[in-house]
């Protein structure tokens, strides 16, 4: 098996993301907007912000990952590219994983890079390691995008399937959200939380591509 179709799918998905103009920035704006509105809503008392900050960021991250997922497979169904991708020599699961990873690179990675700035807005303590925080948000985001990709593949033939994606994906987000918040807030048992987060992300990377492949075959059927 040659990896050429997988690389082509990856490159096409990257090109698609940037060709949409500001489309790739939409999740970023949503993420920043949601996080900035919270202090305005609950008041600016530093202790309170410090306590709720990590949780708010995880919720915002989960919701912003859903913003652009709707199109990643639906567009392929509409323009006929899905038929072509299903007929390459590469496994469909690898194609789907490449497309989802490309989508995470353009829409999810900027969220992780933005997270230290937002953490500062939530009065993160001076000693907090913001970079490893960004890594944790990045890993969690990767799991969010892969589970969301399953929802996107399942609703690829559904018009305005955004709500459906959220309904399918949000329950799958639960482990990542729990371990992620534990890792960031330093709650009891927080020492092993980063490892559990990595495990849940690896689990999504291992499982989601096969679910996406099955869903995409059904979408073309």
């Amino acid at each position: 098996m040659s990896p050429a179709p997988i690389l082509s799918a990856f490159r096409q998905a990257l090109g698609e993301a940037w060709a949409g103009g500001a489309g790739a920035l939409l999740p970023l704006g949503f993420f920043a907007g949601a996080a900035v509105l919270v202090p305005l809503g609950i008041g600016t008392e530093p202790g309170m912000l410090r306590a709720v900050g990590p949780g708010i960021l995880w919720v915002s991250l989960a919701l912003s990952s859903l913003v652009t997922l709707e199109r990643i497979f639906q567009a392929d169904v509409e323009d006929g590219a899905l038929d072509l991708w299903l007929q390459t020599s590469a496994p469909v699961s690898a194609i789907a994983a490449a497309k989802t990873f490309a989508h995470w690179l353009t829409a999810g990675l900027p969220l992780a890079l933005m997270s230290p700035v937002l953490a500062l807005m939530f009065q993160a303590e001076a000693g907090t390691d913001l970079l490893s925080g960004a890594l944790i948000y990045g890993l969690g985001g990767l799991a969010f995008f892969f589970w969301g990709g399953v929802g996107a593949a399942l609703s690829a033939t559904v018009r305005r399937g955004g709500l459906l994606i959220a309904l399918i994906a949000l329950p799958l987000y639960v482990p990542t959200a729990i371990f992620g918040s534990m890792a960031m807030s330093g709650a009891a048992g927080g020492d092993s939380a980063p490892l559990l987060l990595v495990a849940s992300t690896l689990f999504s990377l291992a499982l989601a591509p096969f679910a996406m492949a099955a869903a995409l075959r059904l979408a073309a059927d």
Partner: protein
Amino acid sequence: MQLGQRVYSGDDVQLLTASGLGILRGERVLFEGVSLTVAPGEAMVLRGPNGAGKTTLLRMLAGLTRPEAGRVNRGAALHWVGHRDGLKPNETPRTHLKLWAKAWGADADVDAILNDMGLSRPADVAARYLSAGQRRRAALARLMLETRPVWLLDEPFTALDAEGRDRVLAMVAGHRQGGGAVVAAVHGDAGFAASREMVL
């Protein structure tokens, strides 16, 4: 691809066989008991009114739709050109052909193919600015990227002008001369001598 050169030897080889194909759409039997064989050099034309199942049959032959009954035997690689062109809105004909040449590992001269298909002028125009006929030409140009024995074409002439139609007919003729086979759903005059017609 060199025209007229026999690529596949032996006329007794079946490139594609299907037996007893049937499918349900909702609660309705769309068709059942459809069998066909396609040998090198043959062109099969599928006919039937709108909604008779021509596209569904082609998708079954391509392996995209799973038949509820019967089976398809694909003895050779195939090209699929469906009624959706497969171009991304921001893709140009050139990037489209280069992408698929790379994905298929085909060593094709993209510039020559663009020229052959009359796409040298809009070669670098994004698909969303192209006319339906130009997009159709770009989709059909994929047939020339790699030599594959079986072509499955769903309404290949849709949106093409007379000149584009002639080009496709020449491509089909060359493909058949080289021992390739074509299965096409066509409305009206097929333009090529079909070795078999199937009415759904």
